[in-house]
């Protein structure tokens, strides 16, 4: 996506180290608020899904730490107008908790959030959640075989940890000169200001990535004038979004197998898209042709079409889905600006063609601070090793979920688990089932710790990076999938089916087992 370089990290490491040692000292003296078998960080899809599956396997001693006041994760935070998922709802939901009542083929953010709330209520998960508990650091106690998690409201202990804080949870403002000088209203897409009335206002939208293209049509409907600042145009495919007919919902309710069948069909369709998006195949050209045809059909002006034509291979960056973005750009009260941004001024945005574009409000749809090489808070493993430091050259894990030296620690959406073509929840479910198995193993074999062997992790990453080299993500464009040095610590180079197969196998030979 996106526009404008994201604010990043090197400062974080040093700060993290400092905080970490300070917390270490503090944690030893502080009383423990709660001890549990499993501590889950984050009450979004992944955190709640993990809790549901753990309970279904008889593991009930769970505490979920959540920094906000409600469940929902990314769908609680991203409430900007037009927020929606670009994977069909029947696939963007858990297979073990299907919803026959999706109102549209691509449901909006509020309906997805209602689904998350339904999960929390139906499975009675709310009592497990400690709201407004922001995790500040965590440290492994090798002797006891427990993790000590320092939160804003005290110290928690857990035998196993599920880091389900989400990869896209920290909003990032772009690193534009003069961003502090701007005196008008500033809104980030992930922290929407619902009290701000856009009616008749002059609005800038910086960024034309996944959130930008959803916000723009909504703002064009309401605001006086919208200027859209684009750095790089993305590939936009049409989104066949339609209302679900009543008979369809009734059918799904009466015959759940029919919904399973649709889900399977959607899954297979998205799997086939991988052939065009992940690797450069003859299908890539076909998908690009669909993108170009979509642009040609919706945009008549040659120059505007040129401005909106991507100059990288499809799939290299996130593929966007929208049928109303291009029409919105051509409305009377909307204008696409592709001049580079020179700086922000008191009244607006100065672009390199020498003009100051003045606004009442600037909306930053500039995405998230994706941690390629750091961790959102200091994580200290065996022998005082710090994960952020070990990952300074790019994050690496074993099967995306465990890291050697950090026993009993599981990550959802850890390194190299990002999908480019299919539902993130399919990947998440595979990870959840894996971590449930790990935690079960610990319990059944009465183990203190399960730590992946460094050799197994190295071999896994060698293979992953070898496979990534052949993908479109590594074909030369700059994207949030890659570090500044071009290292891909984000995506999984294969079909969702391959990922699920990778996670289905729990190879005990790859782990060091420590008895109690």
């Amino acid at each position: 996506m996106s526009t404008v370089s994201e604010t990043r990290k090197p400062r974080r490491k040093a700060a993290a180290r400092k905080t970490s040692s300070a917390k270490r000292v503090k944690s030893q003296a502080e009383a423990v608020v709660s001890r549990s078998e499993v501590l889950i960080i984050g009450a979004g899809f992944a955190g709640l899904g993990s809790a549901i599956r753990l309970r279904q396997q008889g593991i009930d001693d769970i505490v979920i730490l959540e920094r906000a006041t409600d469940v929902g994760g990314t769908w609680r935070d991203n409430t900007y107008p037009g927020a929606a998922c670009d994977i069909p709802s029947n696939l963007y939901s858990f297979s073990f908790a299907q919803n026959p009542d999706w109102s549209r083929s691509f449901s909006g953010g509020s309906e997805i959030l209602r689904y998350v709330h339904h999960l929390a209520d139906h499975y009675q998960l709310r009592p497990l959640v400690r709201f407004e508990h922001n995790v500040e650091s965590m440290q492994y106690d090798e002797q006891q075989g427990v993790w000590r998690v320092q939160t804003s409201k005290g110290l928690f202990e857990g035998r196993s940890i599920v880091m389900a804080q989400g990869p896209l949870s920290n909003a990032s403002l772009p690193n534009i000169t003069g961003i502090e000088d701007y005196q008008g209203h500033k809104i980030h897409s992930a922290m929407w200001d619902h009290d701000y009335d856009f009616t008749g206002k002059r609005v800038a939208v910086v960024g034309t990535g996944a959130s930008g293209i959803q916000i723009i049509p909504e703002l064009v409907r309401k605001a006086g004038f919208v200027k859209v600042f684009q750095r790089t145009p993305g590939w936009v495919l049409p989104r066949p979004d339609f209302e679900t007919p009543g008979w369809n919902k009734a059918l799904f309710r009466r015959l759940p197998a029919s919904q399973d069948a649709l889900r399977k069909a959607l899954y297979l369709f998205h799997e086939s898209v991988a052939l065009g998006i992940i690797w450069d195949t003859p299908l890539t050209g076909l998908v690009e042709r669909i993108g170009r045809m979509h642009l040609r059909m919706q945009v008549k002006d040659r120059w505007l079409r040129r401005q909106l034509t991507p100059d990288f291979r499809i799939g290299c960056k996130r593929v966007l889905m929208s049928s109303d973005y291009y029409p919105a750009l051509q409305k009377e009260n909307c204008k696409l600006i592709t001049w580079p941004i020179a700086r922000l001024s008191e009244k607006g945005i100065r672009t390199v063609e020498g003009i100051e574009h003045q606004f009442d409000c600037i909306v930053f749809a500039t995405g998230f601070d994706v941690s390629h090489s750091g961790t959102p808070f200091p994580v200290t493993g065996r022998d005082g090793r710090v994960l952020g430091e070990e990952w300074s050259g790019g994050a690496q894990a074993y099967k995306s979920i465990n890291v050697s030296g950090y026993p009993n620690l599981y990550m959802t959406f850890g390194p190299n688990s990002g999908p480019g073509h299919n539902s993130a929840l399919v990947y998440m479910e595979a990870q959840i089932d894996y971590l449930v198995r790990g935690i079960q193993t610990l319990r059944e074999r009465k183990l203190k710790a399960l730590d992946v062997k460094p050799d197994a992790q190295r071999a896994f990453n060698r293979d992953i990076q070898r496979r990534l080299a052949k993908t479109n993500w590594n074909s030369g464009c700059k994207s949030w999938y890659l570090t500044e040095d071009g290292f891909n610590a984000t995506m999984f180079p294969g079909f969702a089916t391959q990922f699920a197969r990778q996670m289905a196998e729990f190879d005990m030979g790859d782990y060091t087992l420590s008895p109690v």
Partner: protein
Amino acid sequence: MASIDLEKMLVKIKNTQWSLADIDWEAPGAELITEEQWPKLKEFMSDLMWIEHVGARAFAAMAKKAPNDTLREIYSYFHAEEQRHANAEMALMKRWGMLEGDEIPEPNINLRLVIEWLDRYADEMPVYVLGTVVPMLEIALDGALCTFLLETVDDPVCHQAFEKINDDESRHLGVGFTVMEMQGHGKTYIKTVQMLAPLLDPRLLLGIASYFPLLNKMRDNVVAMGLPEEKLYAAMNKFEKIGGRTADGRRNPWFQIIRHHARFVVDRSNRAYHVPVDAIVRLTGYIPRRALPAVPSWVKELTYRPAA
């Protein structure tokens, strides 16, 4: 002048941005334009502004074909900077009362044909073709015209604006000549022939057919305004001097083509060149405006207003 480090140049470009709002367009000095100067200056500024705008579009095409990310970003900036120059020149015209309302000055027919060509075919051209033509246009027309303007106009705001414009232009030329050398580096016979192959491309031939008369037309225009012809030729000779300063530069076959063409242009006695080209200039003068398609929408991006 040694080749420049493009990475450092990109940083420098980003750090030296300016806006129309940095200039006080209402400051005193507009009255220094004499009544005698005014009508000629209006035409002159209009041509200058259009050359900047045409240059902007050429940089946009080069950004699409740039061989690496750094150069692509540099060309994107240059595209916008040339547009800034056109906007600033329009702001000067507005200041001097040369624009009626929101009117954009009409481009002459030869510029209009070049605009049409750029809109249709420029994006298809290899970077080394435009990468050689653009420095030529910049050094010859921009360089000579700007110098002439500053010698004849006393308005301090004009000097202030052109000081900034010239700073930008010197960076454009620095990059332009470096890229010409890059394109000539290690050229084998086969590569040279490959680089010349676009000469058989009818789209490029159309471009040449609009570029040749443009140069002659501009020569006629500036001479009519009082610029000594020799100054224009001196600027064109500078292209040969700087472009040919290194072996790599000289090995670039497009440098050789443009250099030879510049010699034809400069040599008024070369009737074999000037008679047909001048005839084309006259002929194009008969093309009715309405026979041309509507101006492309990128032209409508021009504005003299510092704030929008």
